[in-house]
């Protein structure tokens, strides 16, 4: 059998394969460890964590739409103290890279969290400037190129690990956002975060979510995400992590061909707890089928008709 090389380099960190998890859909891996071998994943991206615990939004926090879901969890998280004590040591038991997703309400919050994580055995940081479900912070930094550039520049002053900036699709020109954070020193970008949506229960004449709006994810958003990953990969020189509706290896390969160096599985975890491992396996099967010995040959390899 041919030897397959599935390893990719993400901002100087080598992942054994390009399969990661989407922040917020996988906890810190504890719950999914019952269903998948975490050693099989390129990296686990944790749920967003802030310098202090956050309560999140009132319920209902989740609802279903055609081919997707809307969520408005509101970044409930235990804060860094417990996270560093419990979640990082848990992940350290596995042979996978650790990416910590960082959220905050102010630039200072982000910088404090990033600085504290500098002393932790964490491989990469993912900066969430794109959560549509919180009133302060989150997407406020992710919809204006100047604000995104400024917060990235500040964070880079404190970060010891490479920084991935997670971008929002709720913008007119996502390539411009990517260029702004690249100019500020971002080591990689990840996209897409969820698309802002709304659902109304016509029988009760109420919003389906207590937050009124939520972030849409799932297979229905995939074509939008593939398009945006392609546009961003064309526009920047830093690596791109692609996500948005990935449920199978075929989905993941579309993103890689569009220019993603790594990919992340999110909503699919909710309906198939084994999705991450199946995607990793399916990518290898595809490589064998098409005699691709090194996955890096596929990154951005899509051709015009």
């Amino acid at each position, binding site marked *: 059998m041919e030897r397959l090389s599935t390893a990719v380099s993400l901002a100087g960190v080598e992942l054994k394969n390009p399969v990661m998890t989407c922040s917020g859909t996988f906890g810190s891996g504890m719950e999914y460890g019952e269903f998948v071998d975490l050693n099989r994943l390129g990296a686990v991206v944790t749920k967003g964590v802030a310098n202090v615990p956050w309560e999140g939004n009132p319920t209902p926090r989740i609802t279903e739409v055609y081919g997707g879901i809307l969520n408005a969890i509101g970044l409930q998280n*235990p804060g860094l103290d417990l996270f560093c004590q419990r979640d990082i040591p848990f992940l350290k038991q596995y042979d996978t890279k650790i990416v910590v997703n960082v959220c905050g309400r102010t630039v200072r919050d982000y910088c404090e969290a990033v600085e504290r994580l500098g002393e932790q055995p964490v491989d990469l940081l993912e900066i969430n400037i794109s959560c549509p479900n919180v009133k302060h912070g989150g997407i406020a930094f992710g919809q204006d190129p100047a604000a995104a550039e400024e917060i990235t520049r500040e964070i880079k002053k404190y970060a010891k690990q490479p920084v991935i900036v997670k971008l929002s699709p709720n913008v007119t020109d996502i390539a411009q956002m990517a260029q702004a954070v690249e100019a500020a020193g971002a080591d990689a970008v990840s996209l897409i975060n969820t698309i802002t949506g709304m659902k109304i229960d016509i029988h009760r004449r109420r919003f389906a979510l207590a937050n009124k709006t939520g972030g849409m994810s799932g297979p229905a958003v995939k074509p939008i995400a593939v398009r945006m990953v392609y546009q961003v990969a064309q526009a920047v020189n830093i690596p791109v992590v692609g996500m948005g509706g990935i449920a199978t290896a075929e989905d993941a390969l579309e993103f890689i061909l569009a220019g993603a160096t790594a990919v992340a599985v999110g909503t699919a*975890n909710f309906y198939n707890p084994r999705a991450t491992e199946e995607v990793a396996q399916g990518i290898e099967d595809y490589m064998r089928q098409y005699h691709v010995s090194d996955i890096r040959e596929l990154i951005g390899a899509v051709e015009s008709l």
Partner: protein
Amino acid sequence: MAGKFKEKATIVYQSRIAADIYSMWLQTERIAAQAVPGQFVSLYCNDASRLLPRPISICEINPRSGMLRLVYRVAGKGTEEFASMHPGDTLDILGPLGNGFPLDRAEGKRSMLIGGGIGLPPMVELCRQLPGEKTVVAGFRSERFLMEDFEALAARTAVATEDGSFGTKGTVLDAIREQGLEADIIYACGPTPMLRAVKEYAAEKGAECWLSMEERMGCGIGACLACVCQSKEIDGHSRVHNKRVCKEGPVFEAGEVEL
């Protein structure tokens, strides 16, 4: 520690037992072998446009035959899909999920099992496995279901209907007061206003009280943090006051949750 399994389950039998209420027996070996009263399972739709699992309480457990009984209400497209399925059809199922009712607390005590509407099904297996003397109080809008199961398992049953078509007219609390029912320990599952009233009643009587909660769920295994309820104590996961219904629950000691 007991595990969770994702299996392909086969429908053995399904029938409609009241308006919009269906009773389904599923062959699901590993889950049936592990499940305890008060736990639930996640059912996945075969229609791929419907992503989220439907959490459904376990009504009966038969580990010897490897079967579970689920009694559910048709509340939307997903449950409509389940209701249209026939013996031999298969669906994906994840479970057993959640903590279940504490059984040993009832040892040597008089217990009262209170179920409102679609909160009633988990009381069937609880009634079978709970030690001691048991009274079942069931509340319905109008049409009754599962009462023949309870009559075979409980020392006493009482019914309340909102429209007064059977038993006490009103709520389960009206039935309890009208019939002068008493208990040392209460287990309840049903709509939030009912749980609130039961919690108050138990506090007033000094009875121990366990409530099974419901909330919109995502993953069903404690990762997504969608189905939280407000807890009195700081929770272990996020150090706020949000316990996960799917993980720390669905059964909580009444004093632990804010309703």
